[in-house]
């Protein structure tokens, strides 16, 4: 077994959400639990197909499971909420439905069969078990910063893949507490950001974003924290139309700042540097 965790990046982490990947890599290295990218991996498909008879759209996630299996590993860790959700649902389906696994393996044909022995985890699962290590790593507690945690959908729905209580999650609040920030109660933290409507119905996304951001702002939030690249894009990019300018951080960016690590923060539409300088977190 390898040291650290077998890491499945997903396509967005290599492009629009590179800030999330680089900060997570640095943070996990510092915690002594490095993320090691898989030798081979495939796009998860980005949307979980709900059709009962649609095996075609389960192939991509299961190929990635096969990659882990062929590397001799039985766990993969994702950073992206969407990838986590899609991989986990496809993987669970193969574990639960023997017929589907058989159909899949018949299709995979020349490739090795998937034996169903790989588990899918999100970074939060790993961080949950590292409380002491995180406390030890915090050199610059972010004491003056007021943040609203935001989960969105993919970490919590459907409830069989939820990383925490679907209606009342605390996993992110607990983690942020270790960094010294003031964590707000955010009643809108499990609402949908508008998701892929961003492609052709930005009016819907803007409505969702306004609802989420205006509530956080009313509570006194100076920043929003999350882990989903699509939520980050929607809350960050579409805020312009709502008149707010609250920076939207990946949770690992705040961890990196609290650990005293340098990060780039180049994917942000609302530049977080102004706030971080105000708070004395950046010089």
């Amino acid at each position, binding site marked *: 077994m390898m040291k650290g965790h077998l890491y499945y990046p997903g*396509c967005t982490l290599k*492009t629009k959400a590179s800030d999330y990947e680089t900060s997570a890599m640095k943070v996990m290295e510092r915690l002594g639990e490095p993320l090691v990218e898989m030798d*081979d991996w495939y*796009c998860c*498909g980005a949307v979980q197909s709900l059709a009962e008879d649609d095996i*075609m759209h389960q*192939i991509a996630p299961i190929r990635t499971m096969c990659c882990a299996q062929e590397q001799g590993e039985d766990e993969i860790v994702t950073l992206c909420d969407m990838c986590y959700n899609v991989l986990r649902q496809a993987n669970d389906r193969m574990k639960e439905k023997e017929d589907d696994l058989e159909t899949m393996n018949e299709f995979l044909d020349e490739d090795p069969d998937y034996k169903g022995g790989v588990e899918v985890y999100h970074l939060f699962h790993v961080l949950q078990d590292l409380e002491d290590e995180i406390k030890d790593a915090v050199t610059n507690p972010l004491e003056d910063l007021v943040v609203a945690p935001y989960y969105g959908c993919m970490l919590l729905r459907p409830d069989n893949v939820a990383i925490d209580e679907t209606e009342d999650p605390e996993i992110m609040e607990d983690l942020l507490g270790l960094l010294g920030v003031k964590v707000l109660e955010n009643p809108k933290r499990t609402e949908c950001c508008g998701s892929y409507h961003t492609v052709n119905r930005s009016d819907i996304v803007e409505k969702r974003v306004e609802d989420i951001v205006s509530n956080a702002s009313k509570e006194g939030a100076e920043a929003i924290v999350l882990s989903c690249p699509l939520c980050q894009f929607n809350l960050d990019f579409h805020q312009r139309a709502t008149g707010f300018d609250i920076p939207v951080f990946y949770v690992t960016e705040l961890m990196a700042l609290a650990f005293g690590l340098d990060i780039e923060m180049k994917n942000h539409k609302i530049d977080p540097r102004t706030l971080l300088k105000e708070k004395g977190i950046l010089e």
Partner: protein
Amino acid sequence: MTPDEENEEVEMVEIFVMGKRYNVPKGLTIMTALEYAGYKFTRGCGCRGGFCGACSTVFRTEDEYKLRMDLACQTAVEDGMFLVQLPFMPAVREDYDIEEVDPEEHDNVLLDYYPEVARCVSCNTCTKACPQDIEVMDYVQAALRGDVERTAELSFDCIQCGLCSIRCPADIKHYHMAQMARRIHAKYNQPSSDELAKRVEEIEKGVYEEEMEKLVNMEKEALKKRYDERDIKEEG
């Protein structure tokens, strides 16, 4: 040929070209077997050496349910083979100005020009179709995550036959997209070659015209001799 060889019976195999039965000598390539059967190639035949990608063939044998694909000039006929030639792929190739496709200026330049790449479901049918044994699905996946270099390197042996694209359930234009990736990689990531620029300049000035004229006008035998005796200088 000795008289013995002349009398030796040639083993024949039965093939079906577009459904019509022919008996052809065993051991021929599909291309020569077609010519043996009386077909004449005016298109769909190029180098005859497995490099140009012009002679795609689709076939299966009688006891198979799967279609196989390969190059007609590189594949031997088998008994009971059903086959057809696909000399041209009408797949869309996007226009672009090489000066405007700097990967640093785009989130994902390949996806900007070939957005259907995002429809890949990882079925791997493209890879199975490839006569060059390229990991086609893997380079499509590399393109999807914006990795121009990996797309260029994995697709390096592509001969543009187009069989990947004709099999793809997502209508991806693998080979055109990958060619774009290789051009971008060469233009923006690879070091430029001063020697090449110098040589092009020499050619344009006509430095080699006299020498070329001599070669063109040489007798065949003399040219062969000259080729065999040519001086190959070590690099550097």
